[in-house]
Structures are given as structure tokens and as C-alpha cells.
């Protein structure tokens, strides 16, 4: 049972670190746009833009 006194702070630490990671991700915009990253995968790697049509 004495082990609990060690395990509980450990589990809290792990849980807190995950919470911190999640909040950091949320704050940096990880969950802002959930649609376009999926579309980017199917695009080719070359750079393309609309500008060439004008020049």
C-alpha cells in the first residue's frame, strides 16, 4: 500500500503532462481546421498557384 504514495503523484504527473500537451496543441491551432489537411494529402508535392495564369 505504501507504493500508492509514490504511484499517485506519478499518475497525476503523467495525466497533467498529457493535459498540458493537449492544451498546447489546441492553442497552436491543431484543432482549428479539420478538413483541409486531409485534402492536402492528395495534392502533388510540386508548388502550384493561380498566379501563372496571369503572367
Amino acid at each position, binding site marked *: 500500500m505504501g507504493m500508492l*504514495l509514490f504511484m499517485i503523484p506519478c499518475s497525476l504527473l503523467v495525466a497533467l503532462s498529457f493535459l498540458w500537451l493537449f492544451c498546447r496543441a489546441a492553442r497552436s491551432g491543431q484543432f482549428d481546421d479539420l478538413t*483541409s489537411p486531409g485534402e492536402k494529402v492528395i495534392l502533388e508535392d510540386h508548388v502550384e498557384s*493561380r498566379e501563372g495564369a496571369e503572367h
Partner: protein
Amino acid sequence: MMQSLGRSPATADHPLQDFSAAPPEKLRDLFQGATPESYACFVPSIVCAACCWVLERIVQSVSGVSEASVDPVGKVVRFRIQESRLSGVPTDGTGNGQDGGEDVRLDRTLKDVLKCLSAHRYEPLPMSLAVDQSAARDPRAAHQRVMRLAVAGFCFGNVMLYSSAIYLGEYAGGLSATYETLFRFLSAALTVPSLAYAAKPFWMGFLDDLRRRAVGLDTPVVLALVIGTAYSAMSLFGETGGHLYFDTITGLVFTVLVARFINERILEQAHDAAGSLSRLLPESSRWVKPGDRVLVRKGERVPADGVVTSEVPAELNEAALTGEFAPVMKARGDHVFAGTQNMSDPFEMTVACSAADSRLGKIQELLALARSQKGRYSTLSARMVRYFVALQLLVAALNASFRWLSGAGEIIETTTAILVIGCPCALAFGVPLATALSLKRLWSEKVFARTESIFDTALQVTDVVLDKTGTLTRGAFAVSGAEMKPELDPETRKALWLAAGQSVHPVARALHSWLAQSEPSGQKTQGECAPGSLPQIQQNGQKVQNRAEQQFQVTEVSGCGLFARDEIGEMLRVGTERFCAQAPFLSAGVFPHWVSAAPAHPDGQTPVYAVTRSGFLGRFGLSDEERSGVGDFLRWAQERQMRLHVLSGDTPQSVAALGSRLAEAVSGGPSAKRGLFKTLKGAQTPEDKLRFVEHLKAQGAVVMMLGDGVNDAAALACADVGVAAHGGVDLAQSHSDLALHGPDLRALVSFFERAAICVRAQKRVLGVSLFYNVFALTLASAGYVHPVWAAFLMPVSSLSALVAAGFWISGAKGGHGAGARAIDVDARAVSRSSHAVNRVSSTWRVRQKYSGRREEMT
């Protein structure tokens, strides 16, 4: 993309072209992002994910920028500028002190980014100009919503761990006092962030309620939290060692947050359908002015409503407005609408009004109105929520005082349970959600409702009043019968086609397109089908027309027809019988016998004659075609036992002719045509129509009026349900409750079906949640519900209301959510296909340019 022939004057007025000349402080204000060190700009030319990819790299390649992100939906580019001590960029000593140098560097970097964006043809605009203001919203609010959820979940999960240990300890016969105290204090400590941070929206909502002196959804939640916390704190620090409710408290915060999060997300998505309309407009729509001449290339979208000025007819996809994917031919003089897409060769147009005044702009206004006006059941549910919360508080108070007086105990448990489980969240969420989903599905079918209450009223309709021209019929002439001289030679035929093409009169246009599509029987010998000859004529059209313009001159005589003259003199006349008979090149009695003998108006057709020097050419009967789906709608209305009335400004004869034709079509034979229409009236003035509708209403009927013209507007406004038909004038649309944006009248049938589904779903949600809440209140005051159970059941009930509302709305017909996404998919797919056209042609140039640019920067 869009190249205006009058670009230079338009861009001169454009407010931000000269941002490089703007003072630095102003520049920073304009592009200030959510936080002091971040910046944001609105880039309307973002079209797809490829643009985002490029933009992120462009912005990141500017020295001094630490990170860049692009929001493709809101068309917003966000970036951060590095602090100088981290960046390797030396300040070039222009600033006096550290701060001054820092400011100069900031301004320079910002200016670099903006210049770089516009050099790549992504014109940056300040966020205040963003089309979709929701995208301009501070993203931190959304971040906080997610983080609150995370904190609440973290606290709840860990508190559950310790309370389980305590419960287990009690069950197993005793936990050592040290551990029990440790667990109790740990769960108390973990409740603090949940209450202080995650539950903040509830506290704020409660304060708002207090300020308004009303009770809302947050009131019972907050009361439950306060009572639970107070009791638990007392038992924690008191000597009794009583029960702790920290698991209930954190669970309540978490589950309510989850339920509201899901509800908000669904509502946001439903309302996004309206926002996606504005994304159909190209960037040039922001600066074109009435009178500008604009070239619309293949695949591009029309920036504003206007008139075609090119000679060559254009094909436009108007699916964004009407839902019809078949391209529509637009010849010179025809109106084109903002947001429609050019499927054919480039054409030129003159802008008639700004994007805000365009048809698409009007639709958006309509949608915004629909959102702001509540229907009967929504109002009812909002009122019921308030009464129910009051009732709930009363029950809680009565229960507590009764238990205290009678000494029954369990005061805290039952009060908390009542406050939690009786909370009418299902009531508050379910009905608005059902309405939002229904409206969204209607939009995808191009039916735009102005109010929510229309759903209730539509189901009680007993009488349908219909306008004829433009409502039951297309409102456009088409040649429905032709009696031509058999040996009409191709030259004469072409001359007739060209002469008719010079006029913008609807009759001439109808004749023109009919001649292009039909071929005389003699030329069909090669096995070509009639429409196949259209391109041939069109291809030659350009050349021939130039020659034709030199050859003959076309003059219109209003109310009579038109004549063409060549070098010799007048050679062709098209028009009324009298006008043609008076042609100077004809001797009297040139009309064949059968022409004078045959009835002039068979089936209410309008006859048009054509004569040349060589004699009589032919007679064409023009009539207005019925709209598609008219028969289906009438049959459906007849089955529903609605009384049908037709009121038209047209002659009584043509109304009667149309009436019997429709009756035949609907009932399948002339024998049963009696009784389809209760009233068939011609020669009606707007006042007559209004009086008729008023008369019906006075008799207790619920009237639906379907019309399109200025003369219908008063009657539309008076009717219980006014429906503006496709192609109707703005006045009719602004006076109606419902606007059909597709030509097919079957949309109206599906509107009624949708209305029935929506009202049924609203009633069910109301009924089920009321029953659930009353039942739960009874159980809780009897003491059967433990607060922990209540904390679980409450959000479960509201979530199930959401799911049920969604299911009842979308499960009734078609795949789940398939229709709801249609409008969005449609908009994106079309914009992407137009973008693809340009991408193909520009790939290698861009590659070259971009790599050059990168070298220059690094």
C-alpha cells in the same frame, strides 16, 4: 484571375492597393491578429487546399516570420513575426533605441509579407473586410472551448479514480484513515480547476440570468454545483466525515460541456451552408462597380449580376443559384448572375449592380433573416424551458423544505438530483436543432425559407392560388408549332435566323433559337439529328454574321415586328399578320389560303409570320411552355384536397386553355378534367388578386399564393404562405415567405414534405423531453436517483434529443446527412473544377517563378 477590361479605374478605388504607402502604425492596426505578436489578413483569392499549401510556404519564406497558417474556409492567413533576439535578422540601426529598432523591424517584416502576398497575386486585405465574419472571429474562443473540455475531462477522470477507491474501500470493509483522507483531499483539489476554469461559461451564464432577472438553463446547473460543493466542503473539513459529491460535480461539468459542444458544432455546421454561398464569388466581385466591363474566362465565375455584351453566346452553369446543372445559354443582352460559372469560351459582360445587390447577395440576406426569426415551436420551446426551470426550482425548494420539516433526510442528495436531472436541456437543444437541420436541407434543394414559422403554417394550407405566366409556365416564349413553306432554302433560312438574332425581343429570341435547333426535313437525309446541326450554324455564325451585318440592316417596329433591308431595299419581314401583309415588296394576296383559313390562335398560341421577297415563308405559333413539375405538384395538391385557383393577368381564353390542358395532363384524360381548378380567372389586376386572397382568408382558408411578378407582390404578402417562383422579380421575392430558386415546381412538394417532417420532429422532441423531465423530476424528488446518476442521465438525455432530432429530420428520406452536405459539396466542387482549369495551364510557370523567388529570399 478575373481580368476586367476596365481594371485600372476599378483598382484605383480599391482601398488597399496602396497599403505600402500607409503609415506603419496604421498598417499594424489593420493587420493585427488575435494576440499582440500575431497578424492576420483576409485573402479572398484562396480557392482550395493547394492555395493554402503555397501560401503557407510563401509567407514562411519571408525572413522574420516564425510561423504561418492558412484557414481555407474563412480565407484567412495568420502569421507570427519572430522577436528580434531570436531571429538572425540584424536591425539596420535606423531605430534609436531597442524598442524603436524593434518597431521598425516589425513594420518592415509585415510590409514584406504583404508585398510578397500581392506579388504572388494573393491580394491581402484587412480582416475587417472578411466576407465571412465568423472566420474573422478570434480563434482563441474556439481554443478555449476545447481546452475547457480537456480540463473538465481531466478533472472528472481523476476524481472518479479517487472516489472509486473510496467507494471500494467502504465496500471492502475499510480503507486506512491516511489513504481515505488523502483521496478525499485529492479529489477536492482536482475539483478546483474544473469549477474555476472549465465551468466558467456556466457562472457567466448564471450572472447574465441574474442580471436579466430570469431563469435560464445555467441556473439549475450552477445551483447544483454550489449546493454540491458547499455540502462536500463541509463534510471534507467538518468532523462528520460525510459524503463527498466531487465526482458528481466534475462529472456534471464535463458532460454538460460535451453536450453543449456537440450542439454548438452541429448548429455551426448547419449555419455554414449560408456562409458557403459567399465563397462562390470570385475575388474580383469585391471591387467591380456597375458599368464595368468584365471578361469572364472559361471556368471562371461571374463576379456580379450583369448583361452579356459579347456576340458569341455563352453557356453558364447556374447550379449555385438554381440547383440545375444543365448549362444555360446566354446570348447578347441576357442577364447573368453573380456566382454562376462560365462553361464555354470567354465572354464579356457589363456589370449591372454590385455583388451585395446581386441575386446571390439577396439569398444571403434571406438566409440571415430565416435564422433570426423564430418559428412557433422554437418560441414555444424557449418559453417552456424558462417555465420548466422555474418549476424545477420550485420542486427542489418544496422537496427540501418538506424533507427538513418531516425529518426525512437526504435533503442534499435529492435537491442536487432534482436540480441536475430535471434540467430541460433536451427541450432547449432539440427543437432549434430540428429547425436548423430542416432549413439546411431546404437550402440544399434551393428552396429558401424566410421564416421558421412557415413550417407550421404550410401544413395547414387549404387553398393554393396560382399565377399563370412565369409561375405555372416558364415565362419565356418557345415555338410550339410551325407551318413553313416546304422548299425553304438554307440561304433564306439563315437570313431569317440572322435577322431574328439581331433583336432582343422574346419572340424574336424564341424564333432565333428554334431555327438554330430545328432543321427542315430535306436536310435530315444525311442522318443528322436536328439538334446536331446547332454547332455547325454557330461555328459559321461568327463569319456569316459579320457579312450579314454588312449585307442587311435590321430595324424593329415595336408592337409589330422587324424588317431587314439589304443593298436593294427591304427584303424580309417577321411579325404580326398585318405587319407582314403590308410589306412593300409583296403584292396583295400573297398569303396562301390555308393561312387565312386556319384559326389564328390555336391553343392560345401567339402567331408570328415571316415573308421575303420570294413570298410567304411560314407561320410560327409561339406559346409559353409549362414549368417542369407542374403536373406533379398539381396532382399532389389535388390528393391533399387543397383547392386550386388560377388568377392571371392574361386573357381569359388562354387561362382556360392552359387550365384544360393541365387538367388533362394531371388526370390523364379529358373526361376527368372537371374539378381540378376551383377557379380559373383571367384579366386580373393586382388589386383583384389581393381581393381574392383576402376573400379566401376571410372565409377561414389558409392560403398559399404562388407568383412571380410585380402584380403578385401584394397578394404574396397577404397570403399565409407566399411563394416566389423561380425567376421572379425582386419585389415578389421580398414579399414572400419562401423563394424557389430552381425552375422545377416539384421542389414545392418536397418543401411540404420537409415541413411535415420538421414539425413532426419538433413535436416529438418536445413531447419526449417533457415526459422525460417530468418523470425524472418525480423520481428524483422521491429520492430514487443518486446525484451521480443524475449527472450522467442529464447530458445523456440532451444528447439523445440531439441524435433523435437529427434522425427524425434526416432519417425520414434519403441517406443520413447526405442532402445536408449537398450545398457545401456543390459549392466546393464547382470552385475546385474552375480552379483546376487554371492550374493546368500555369503549373510550370509558377514553378519557375516560385523557385526564383525562394532563391532571392534566402
